[in-house]
């Protein structure tokens, strides 16, 4: 006995290959589970570059066009903020300018989803325990997740390089690597987040917030300074997405910024590795605190429960959107200093935000983008219903005196009213800062707030589409729901800048709203969107009442 105890106490911390035993098997398992998700993400991100390139070629036919667009865009802070800085006017450089940082951010989102899915989510569900009981080393789970994410990002890099090599192999390589390495950075940060919280949902939220902050820093920095004539603003240099931008593909590439990305990725991997070796499977560094022995007044029924489950996420959204909008409101002021004189530019601005004046156009474009992003919240809130169903928490709840309709409505109230609160917070944030700078609080604040609230009907259309899926196609709700959100977000961010055909733009409910502030308002589009949303919601709830509960 003593001998056994002794070896246990004195055994050195082993960090050899034993820690990695089973990594290959787990990797194959992860790739098998993600056999659809990874190719879809990789193709969507990897092929956007080449489709953007062909759009560029048809939109800006002459060298003069290209030179104009680059010059005009760069001279305007608001446009720099929104689209990034154009470092050169070749087709390759313009493509990198339009979609480079956007794709880098999306690679980050893909990576964080993959990493959390194979680390904390596995632990939270208890599946990791069963795996760890096999010939599986302490760090094998994390290693296989990081390898999976590396494979996905490598696929994106290869696609970008292969499809854009015609514009210059150096530039294509720089763009591909900047996107892929940014993905790895956020995958690594997600791996760290997965170590410090027991809650996969929270870990995902933290990692997503990191992507959001990085993107906002890039926007703020680019708004403040035109980097085409020198170095980027310091805020840009605080952001990994800013580093990706500063790789400057097709414009005298700066290869050393890739090193920054690689170092940060490696460092976050290392931190995650150290942390994962020091904690128990399924645990985190913060012990769960005891809760109340009895339910308080607020946990009264289905509605109290839904509020309890969703309030944290909602609060995070309100704060995050209010702060981001305030920053954008600050950028918007002074956007109208210089209006580009290129015909093409005016067209683009017009498509994004209306043509009245450049301040309004910028505000309108920004507010529309915030509205588009808020669809992520509303989808999450509706999909919570499906998660409750598949995690077998809905069944015992519905075995009580709670009708399906009441249960669904308890979450849908948050899915519908949450965006109202978020958009109000965003409108106030942007409006107060913008109006204060313009010295016209009474005039500008209501305009900006109103424009922000005007996004609500379009958000609700997305909400109701997810509700419809939940009622009629339960097993596909999550995947199709996110696909819908993805299409709306992609159209919102890329559609106008890519000069996409109106038929494509029309797929997004946001394309049917007037560009506010600025354009005149008629009731018709609002009525149609609200009506459509009501009909889809009713159909979804009708389906839910008729269908079997599944798990």
């Amino acid at each position, binding site marked *: 006995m003593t001998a056994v105890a002794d070896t246990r106490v004195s055994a050195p911390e082993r960090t050899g290959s034993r820690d990695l035993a089973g990594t290959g098997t787990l990797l194959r398992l992860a790739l098998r589970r993600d056999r659809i998700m990874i190719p879809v993400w990789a193709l969507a991100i990897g092929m956007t570059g080449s489709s953007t390139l062909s759009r560029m070629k048809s939109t800006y036919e002459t060298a003069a066009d290209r030179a104009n667009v680059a010059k005009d865009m760069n001279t305007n802070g608001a446009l720099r903020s929104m689209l990034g800085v154009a470092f050169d006017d070749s087709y390759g450089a313009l493509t990198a300018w339009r979609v480079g940082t956007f794709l880098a951010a999306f690679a980050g989102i893909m990576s964080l989803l993959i990493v959390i899915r194979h680390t904390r989510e596995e632990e*939270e569900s208890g599946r990791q325990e069963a795996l760890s009981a096999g010939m599986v080393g302490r760090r094998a789970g994390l290693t296989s997740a990081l390898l999976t994410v590396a494979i996905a990002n490598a696929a994106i890099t290869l696609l970008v390089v292969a499809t854009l090599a015609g514009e210059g192999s150096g530039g294509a390589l720089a763009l591909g690597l900047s996107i892929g390495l940014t993905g790895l950075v956020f995958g690594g940060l997600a791996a760290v987040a997965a170590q410090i919280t*027991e*809650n996969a949902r929270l870990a995902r939220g933290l990692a997503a917030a990191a992507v959001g902050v990085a993107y906002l820093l890039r926007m703020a920095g680019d708004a403040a300074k035109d980097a085409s004539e020198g170095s980027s603003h310091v805020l840009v240099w605080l952001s990994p997405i800013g580093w990706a931008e500063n790789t400057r593909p097709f414009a005298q590439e700066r290869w050393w910024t890739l090193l920054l990305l690689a170092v940060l990725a490696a460092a976050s991997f290392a931190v995650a590795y150290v942390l994962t070796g020091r904690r128990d499977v*399924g645990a985190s560094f913060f012990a*769960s*605190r*005891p*809760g*109340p*022995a*009895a*339910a*308080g007044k607020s*946990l*009264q*029924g*289905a509605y*109290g*429960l839904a509020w*309890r*489950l969703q309030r944290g996420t909602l609060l995070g959204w309100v704060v995050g959107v209010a702060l981001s909008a305030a920053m954008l409101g600050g950028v918007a002021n002074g956007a109208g200093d210089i209006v580009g004189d290129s015909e093409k530019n005016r067209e683009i601005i017009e498509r994004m935000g209306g043509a009245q004046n450049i301040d309004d156009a910028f505000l309108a474009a920004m507010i529309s983008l915030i509205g588009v992003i808020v669809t992520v919240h509303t989808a999450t809130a509706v999909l919570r219903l499906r998660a409750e169903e598949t*995690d*077998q*928490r809905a*069944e*015992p*709840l*519905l*075995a*009580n*005196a*709670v*009708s*399906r309709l*009441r249960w669904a409505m308890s979450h849908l109230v948050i899915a519908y009213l949450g965006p109202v609160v978020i958009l109000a917070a965003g409108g106030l944030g942007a409006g107060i800062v913008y109006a204060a700078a313009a010295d016209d609080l009474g005039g500008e604040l209501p305009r900006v707030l109103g424009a922000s609230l005007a996004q609500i009907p379009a958000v609700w259309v997305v909400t109701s589409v997810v509700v419809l899926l939940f009622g009629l196609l339960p097993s596909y709700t999550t995947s199709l729901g996110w696909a819908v959100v993805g299409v709306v977000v992609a159209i919102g961010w890329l559609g106008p800048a890519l000069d996409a055909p109106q038929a494509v733009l029309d797929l997004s409910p946001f394309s049917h709203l007037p560009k506010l502030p600025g354009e005149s308002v008629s009731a018709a589009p609002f009525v149609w969107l609200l009506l459509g949303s009501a009909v889809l919601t009713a159909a979804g709830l009708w389906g839910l009442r*008729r269908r*079997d*509960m599944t798990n």
Partner: protein
Amino acid sequence: MTTAISTSGLHKSFGRTHALDGLDLEVETGEVHGFLGPNGAGKSTTIRVLLGLLRADSGAVQLLGKDPWHDAVELHRRIAYVPGDVTLWRNLSGGEVIDLYGRLRGGLDQDRRTELLERFELDPTKKGRTYSKGNRQKVALVAAFASDVDLLIMDEPTSGLDPLMEEVFRDCVIEERERGRTVLLSSHILSEVEALCDRVSIIRKGRTVESGSLAELRHLTRTSVTAELSGPPNGLSALPGIHGLDIQGKRVKLQVETDKLDAVLRQLGESGVRSLISTPPTLEELFLRHYQDDIRDEAEAVAR
């Protein structure tokens, strides 16, 4: 006596799988009814139909005189359900979940809640995942037993409980019966069913194969008899209902269908009985007979 649960000819299929294939189930008010069957026989599907979570393809269902699909909410006020695998919300404490469920049913007896927490030795301040499997189960059990309801539906409720807690569970079920409540208990722990249930239904492949009181069911099965005789036995093999006859000199081992026991004892008496051991069939044997039928059917299907 009135009927608490009554289903007849219940059918439910999921795609190609026929989960329920004409299932009949009758549970009288005030009884503890055992619901048995091999894995995948359709027990949980039946329970989910009874709870209005699934809609039967055809057949009649009545719960406390109402339709569980159409009158779900009204019915659920009078029902408590304990699933076999309790999942809790990670940021809610056990005590909060118990109260929430109580509020969503007919109400919660606070004294009973306190008493049950003590008897089940459950700490109500812990949260979601920090409970072990057995403790999660206890959360649902406390919520069910403390609720003011008429019918308890339990789907393998004791999975994960230690033997001491299993004992507490049995006491609670007996108390429920004394209060006149009806309990439908799906379980694989046959000793539990034997100790608690007034009547049982055994289902297989979505159909009821046996239903009745334990005494009635025993009657249908075989009693094992081992006897030492003063002379060699004779005429045993000619008797009806005898199985596995094994004669070694004056020792006899056999199994006999319980309703044919009388004739066998008389025949043995003719040879003079020195000692006799007779074992009544256990529920387990009864059960295994149906399970093994299942296995045999499958073997035949494969052979074909």
